[in-house]
C-alpha cells in the first residue's frame, strides 16, 4: 500500500530512531528492552481497505454488521424518555434469570411485569434440567431450582407461560432458553404450547442456546457423546428451518470457552470449528446453507481487560465468520455471513475480582469502551458484584446502566463506526489475530473437525492447559491483578457500599422448591395416561436407532403425552450412550 520510495524513507527513519532514540533510552533505564511498542505504516503489508475492512454492513463486515444498530437509532429519544433497556419490551427479552419451581418463576415474571418490565422470558434452567434429570432423580439432590427454574414436564413449561398471555402472548414476545443438551425437548415444549394456544408455531420467536459442542470443552452440561449430540442438533436445525423460521437455531460462541481458560486464539478458532460442525450438519442433512445459516447467532465471545486485543478480536471474528461462510461453505446470502451477537467486546466475568469488588465497576467501563469501539452498545458488563453470587444488587445494576449511558451520551464513543479502522496497530493486530485463529481452525479441521477434536481430548486439554498457564503467570506476578496479586499491602483499603440485592432468588422459596417440585412430579405421574407415555417413549426409542431419522416429531409427541424430561432423555441415553467426562 505504501509507495516503495516512501517505504524506504520510513525504514531508514525507523533504523535511525532505534539507534539514536530508542536503544539509548532503554540502556539509560537499564532495561532488557522497551516496555512499549509503536506501529508505523511498515506494520501494514498489503493493506487493501475494501478487501480487509470495507464499509459497515459490507462484506467482510470488519467494521460492523450495519451502519448503526436499532438501539443507536433511538438512543437520544430513549434518553429523553428515560427508557430502561434492561427490562426488555418492544420485542425483546428481559433479564436472564430463573429459580425454583415453575410457579415460583411464573410469579417472579408476573412481579416484573407489574413493575413495567414486559420483556419475554430469558430463561435459566436448573442444573438437573440442563443435564436431563427430573427433580426426583438422586442426581438432582440439592440442585433443584438453584441456578435456574426446574422443568420436569410440559406441565411446568405451561405454568411458566401463564405469565405470557394476551398482549404478551408468545406470538408477540420472544423467549430465550439457555438450554443445550435437552434443547430439543424445550423447543418441542415451546411448539406444543403454541399448538395448545392455537398459535401457528411459525410465529414463535426467540433463541435456544442449543450449542452442545462447547459444553464438552467449557460448561459441562452434556448428556450424550459428541456424535449423537450433533445428531440431535441436526434434528433441531432441520425442524426449526422447516417449521420455526423465526426462531434462531443456535446461540454459539466462545464466551464459555474463554471463561474456562482458553486463549483468544483458542476462543476464536474453537468457536469457528464448532460453527463449522453445525453448518456441516445442516448441509449434510440436505439443506442449502443459505436456508438455515441466517438463523445461526452467537451468544458472545470471551473477553479480557486487554481492550486493544479485544477490539482486534471482534474485527477478526466478524471477518473470519464471513469468510468461513462465503469461502468454505459457498454461502451467497449476505445474511448467512453476518456474525450476529447481542454484545461485542467485554472484560469477561472471570476478569472480575472478589477482592475490592467495587474495582469491577472500573473494569467494566474498560469493557464498555471496547464494546463501543467494536460495533456494539457500550455495555459496562458485568455489574460489579458479579463475583458475590447469583443476583445483582440494585446499586450494581444502576451503576452499570449509568456507566453505559455515560459512555454513550457523554463520551459519545459509539458515534463513530470502527474508529480504529486504518490504524497501523489495529489492522496488523486484527490480521495477526485472524491468521492465528485460521491456523488453529485448520489444525482442528485436519483432525476431522470439532467433534474429533473433542473426542481425542485436544480442545479440552488445550483449554485446561491455558487456564493453568494463566494461573501460573498470576502467581508469579507476570500478569497483574490489582488487589489480588499486587497492591494488597496494609495501606490499601476495601471500599464498600451498602447493597440491596433484589429479591429474585427468595431463600424461603428455595428451601421448599425441591420438595414442591417432587410433589408435582408425583401428581403428574399419577394423573397422566401411563400407557400412552410408554407407547410414545417406545416410538422414540425405535426411531432413535435410525441415525437418519429426525427425532423432533417423536419428542414433540412425548412432550404432549406428558412424558417427563428425564424419561425422554433416558430413552436417548439408552440408544446414544453417555458422554465420558474428559480426562486431561
Amino acid at each position, binding site marked *: 500500500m505504501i509507495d516503495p520510495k516512501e517505504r524506504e524513507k520510513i525504514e531508514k527513519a525507523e533504523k535511525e530512531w532505534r539507534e539514536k532514540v530508542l536503544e539509548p533510552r532503554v540502556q539509560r533505564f537499564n532495561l532488557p528492552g522497551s516496555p512499549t511498542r509503536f506501529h508505523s505504516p511498515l506494520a501494514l503489508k498489503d493493506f487493501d481497505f475494501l478487501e480487509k475492512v470495507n464499509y459497515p454492513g459490507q462484506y467482510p463486515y470488519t467494521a460492523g454488521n450495519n451502519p448503526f444498530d436499532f438501539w443507536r437509532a433511538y438512543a437520544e429519544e430513549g434518553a429523553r424518555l428515560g427508557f430502561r433497556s434492561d427490562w426488555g419490551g418492544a420485542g425483546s427479552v428481559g433479564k436472564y434469570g430463573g429459580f425454583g419451581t415453575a410457579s415460583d418463576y411464573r410469579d417472579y415474571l408476573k412481579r416484573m411485569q407489574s413493575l413495567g418490565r414486559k420483556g419475554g422470558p430469558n430463561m435459566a434452567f436448573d442444573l438437573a434440567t440442563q443435564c436431563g434429570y427430573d427433580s426426583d432423580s438422586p442426581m438432582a439432590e440439592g440442585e433443584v431450582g438453584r441456578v435456574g427454574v426446574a422443568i420436569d414436564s410440559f406441565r411446568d413449561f405451561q405454568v411458566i407461560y401463564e405469565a405470557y398471555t394476551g398482549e404478551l402472548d408468545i406470538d408477540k414476545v420472544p423467549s430465550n432458553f439457555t438450554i443445550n443438551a435437552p434443547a430439543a425437548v424445550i423447543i418441542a415444549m415451546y411448539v406444543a404450547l403454541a399448538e395448545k394456544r392455537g398459535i401457528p408455531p411459525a410465529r414463535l420467536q426467540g433463541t435456544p442456546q442449543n450449542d452442545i459442542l462447547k459444553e464438552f470443552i467449557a*460448561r*459441562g452440561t452434556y448428556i450424550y457423546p459428541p456424535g449423537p449430540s450433533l445428531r440431535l442438533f441436526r434434528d433441531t436445525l432441520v425442524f426449526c428451518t422447516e417449521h420455526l423460521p423465526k426462531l434462531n437455531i443456535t446461540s454459539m460462541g466462545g464466551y464459555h470457552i474463554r471463561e474456562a481458560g482458553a486463549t483468544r486464539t483458542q476462543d476464536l478458532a474453537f468457536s469457528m470449528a464448532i460453527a463449522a460442525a453445525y453448518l456441516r450438519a445442516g448441509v449434510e442433512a440436505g439443506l442449502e446453507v443459505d436456508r438455515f445459516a441466517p438463523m445461526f447467532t452467537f451468544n458472545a465471545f470471551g473477553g479480557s481487560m486487554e481492550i486493544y486485543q479485544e477490539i482486534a478480536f471482534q474485527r477478526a471474528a466478524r471477518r473470519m465468520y464471513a469468510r468461513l461462510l462465503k469461502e468454505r461453505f459457498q454461502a451467497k446470502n449476505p445474511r448467512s455471513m453476518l456474525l450476529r451477537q447481542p454484545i461485542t467486546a467485554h472484560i469477561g466475568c472471570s476478569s472480575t475480582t472478589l477482592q475490592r469488588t467495587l474495582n469491577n465497576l472500573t473494569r467494566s467501563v474498560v469493557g464498555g469502551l471496547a464494546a463501543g469501539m467494536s460495533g456494539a452498545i457500550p455495555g459496562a458488563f458485568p455489574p460489579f458484584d458479579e463475583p*458475590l453470587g*447469583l443476583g445483582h444488587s440494585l446499586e450494581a445494576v444502576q451503576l452499570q446502566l449509568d456507566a453505559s449511558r455515560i459512555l454513550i451520551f457523554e463520551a459519545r464513543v459509539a458515534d463513530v463506526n470502527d474508529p480504529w479502522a486504518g490504524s497501523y496497530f489495529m489492522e496488523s493486530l486484527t490480521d495477526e489475530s485472524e491468521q492465528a485463529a485460521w491456523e488453529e481452525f485448520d489444525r482442528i479441521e485436519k483432525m476431522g473437525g470439532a467433534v474429533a477434536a473433542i473426542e481425542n481430548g485436544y480442545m479440552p486439554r488445550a483449554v485446561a492447559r491455558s487456564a493453568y498457564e494463566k494461573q501460573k503467570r498470576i502467581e508469579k506476578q507476570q500478569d497483574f491483578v490489582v488487589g489480588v496479586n499486587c497492591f494488597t499491602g496494609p495501606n490499601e483499603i476495601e471500599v464498600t457500599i451498602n447493597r440491596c440485592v433484589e429479591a429474585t432468588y427468595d431463600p424461603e422459596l428455595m428451601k421448599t422448591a425441591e420438595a414442591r417440585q417432587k410433589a408435582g412430579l408425583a401428581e403428574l405421574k399419577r394423573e397422566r395416561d401411563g400407557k400412552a407415555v410408554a407407547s410414545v417413549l417406545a416410538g422414540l426409542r425405535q426411531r432413535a436407532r435410525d441415525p437418519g431419522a429426525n427425532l423432533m416429531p417423536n419428542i414433540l409427541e412425548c412432550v404432549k403425552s406428558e412424558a417427563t424430561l428425564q424419561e425422554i432423555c433416558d430413552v436417548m441415553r439408552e440408544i446414544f450412550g453417555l458422554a465420558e467426562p474428559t480426562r486431561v
Partner: protein
Amino acid sequence: MREERKIRVLVAKPGLDGHERGARVVAYGLRDAGFEVIYTGLRQSPDQIATAVIQEDVDVLGMSILSGAHLTLTRKVIDRLRERGAADVLILLGGIVPEADVPALKEMGVAGIFTAGTPVAKIAEFIRAELGAG
C-alpha cells in the same frame, strides 16, 4: 535420605456443576507444589467421592462447587465419609461460597475454604501446616 511419602490430594466435583477451571488449576498447581493429586472429573455423587477418598488413600479432599448446592453436597459427602470411617481426611472447599455459609461449613467439618483469587501456593501452605508436614 529417606524418601518422604507425598501428601495425597483428591480434587472432586460433586453434583452437576460443570465448571471445572478452578478445580483443574488447583489440581495442577498442587501437583507442581509436590503433592500427589487425583482429579475425579465432573458429576461425582457423594458415594463416588467417599469411595475415591478411601480407594486412593488420600490425606486431603478438596471439593469445588459453584452451583450454590455446597451446603447440601458437603453435608452429604461428610456423612458418607463418616459412615465409612474415613472422615479423618482433611476437607477443603472451593468455588462460590458466600461468607454467610462459612460457619455452617466449618461446623460440618470443612477445615479451609479457598475461593476466587486464592493463590494455589496458599492452599499448599495450609495443607502442609494442617498435616504437620512443615
